[in-house]
């Protein structure tokens, strides 16, 4: 996870102490129902351009290990607070969803990309 943060030039907004986990898959979408319907392994991150609380709830339901907010869109305070409660690392990158997916794919991650 630490390598992913470096690769994306991402700011770590929460969960600094939990960045040593291995990540093998990324689910990228701005449609949460698409995330809910995607097959998700036990070492996935969620990538999204949305910023609201439901992103974190969705992450919790599908058991992703971290959330990366893209396009420099900072998550809302309540979303960061809930992620802290759930012990979910939160990253913020200025890259677009497509750019983030491309970089992570190049780095060897399996990518599930929903529309948008």
């Amino acid at each position, binding site marked *: 996870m630490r390598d992913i943060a470096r690769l994306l030039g991402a700011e770590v907004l929460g969960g600094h102490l939990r960045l040593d986990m291995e990540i093998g898959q990324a689910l990228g979408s701005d449609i949460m*129902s698409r995330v809910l319907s995607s097959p998700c392994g036990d070492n996935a991150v969620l990538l999204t351009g*949305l910023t609201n*609380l*439901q*992103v974190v*709830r*969705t992450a*919790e339901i599908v058991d992703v290990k971290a959330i990366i907010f893209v396009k420099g869109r900072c998550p809302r305070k309540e979303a960061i607070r809930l992620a802290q409660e759930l012990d979910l690392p939160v990253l913020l990158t200025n890259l677009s969803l497509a750019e983030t997916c491309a970089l992570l794919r190049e780095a060897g991650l399996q990518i599930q990309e929903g529309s948008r």
Partner: protein
Amino acid sequence: MSSKPLLEMRFPIQGNDFMQAGEAASKIKRALQQIGMESGLVRRVSIISYEAEMNIVIHAYHGELILTIWPGKIQIVATDVGPGIADVDLAMQVGYSTAPESVRQMGFGAGMGLPNIQKCADEMQVETKVGEGTRILVKINLR
């Protein structure tokens, strides 16, 4: 079906309350993990609960989500007082939604709620009356 459930959890759900939306599903998920349920099953029940809860928050005035575990079966019932569904067959089609743009901007209203519930369920029934409300009954078989 036995007359006595092994576990029952009931959650009142408030329409349009996006700050609380998902809390019932989250509590259900944690409870199932605590009783040692297999992770694939926890995931199916959690997704059904979350989509059903979001449906009430998005479309209804208020409602209730009830999880009941029976020997051999899990049942999730979502009832609401709300506008009802005019065409259930249409609502079951992926991509059809009556949700407003504000809800789409939150990542929902993509017309995938009911199809996602059906995908995770072994059995699903939708009873609805326009102008009164909707009741969704979902069953998952335990093997």
